[in-house]
């Protein structure tokens, strides 16, 4: 039951060590977000956050997901700073008795992270120019389902 912010890469296997123990655990779901090159000319992302508020928001969302979906365990790791195409940006893991709760909680956390967690992405093109990523209506729509 923890959220963490860092610049360094994370190791999914290490994050899952000791994650979600107990005889009533039946399902674990993980989501990993990876820097994708949509334009064919992107080199990296720069991710800005709001120190203090971002950690608090991630912990609040995690606790809310645990309450709402009866999670046995949850973890959020989110990176900031410069990340190259192909690098993992963030991960979410959820553990529950049943698969439906584990899947729903992971999707809920992702929908919140995408549109309510204080992160802002800038795409850095191969020529060095940067452009802020605009929020997507589809992310707002995804959030509205909860």
């Amino acid at each position, binding site marked *: 039951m923890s959220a963490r912010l860092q610049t360094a890469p994370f190791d999914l296997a290490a994050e899952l060590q000791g994650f979600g123990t107990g005889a009533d655990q039946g399902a674990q779901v993980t989501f990993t977000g990876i820097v994708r090159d949509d334009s064919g000319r992107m080199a990296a992302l720069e991710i800005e956050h*709001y120190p203090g*508020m971002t950690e*608090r928001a991630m912990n609040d969302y995690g606790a809310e997901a645990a309450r709402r979906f009866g999670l046995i365990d949850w973890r959020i790791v989110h990176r900031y700073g410069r990340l190259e195409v192909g690098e993992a940006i963030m991960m979410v893991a959820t553990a529950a008795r049943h698969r439906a709760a584990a899947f729903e909680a992971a999707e809920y956390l*992702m929908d919140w992270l995408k549109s309510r*967690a*204080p992160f*802002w992405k800038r795409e850095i093109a191969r020529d060095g120019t940067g452009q802020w990523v605009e929020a997507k209506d589809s*992310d707002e729509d995804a959030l509205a389902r909860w």
Partner: protein
Amino acid sequence: MTLDVLYFAWLRERIGAPRERIETGAATVRDLVAELSARDDWHAAAFADMAAVRCAVDQQLADLDAPLAGAREVAFFPPMTGG
């Protein structure tokens, strides 16, 4: 009152600084935006389209009508694009 005002992403770039400490009598976020916009062209440009600006008061998301009484930190930023 003394307020720390923080800016992120393109708001930070337009204003040219990540934060500033101000003295203000603004009662709401909306009053504060009006006061800051009147300062100079950079602030005016940052707040030109408030539909594209989000706000937090003391690190909690807030809307334009949120009161500032007792607040210590107000942040302005574009819609979040995390994950």
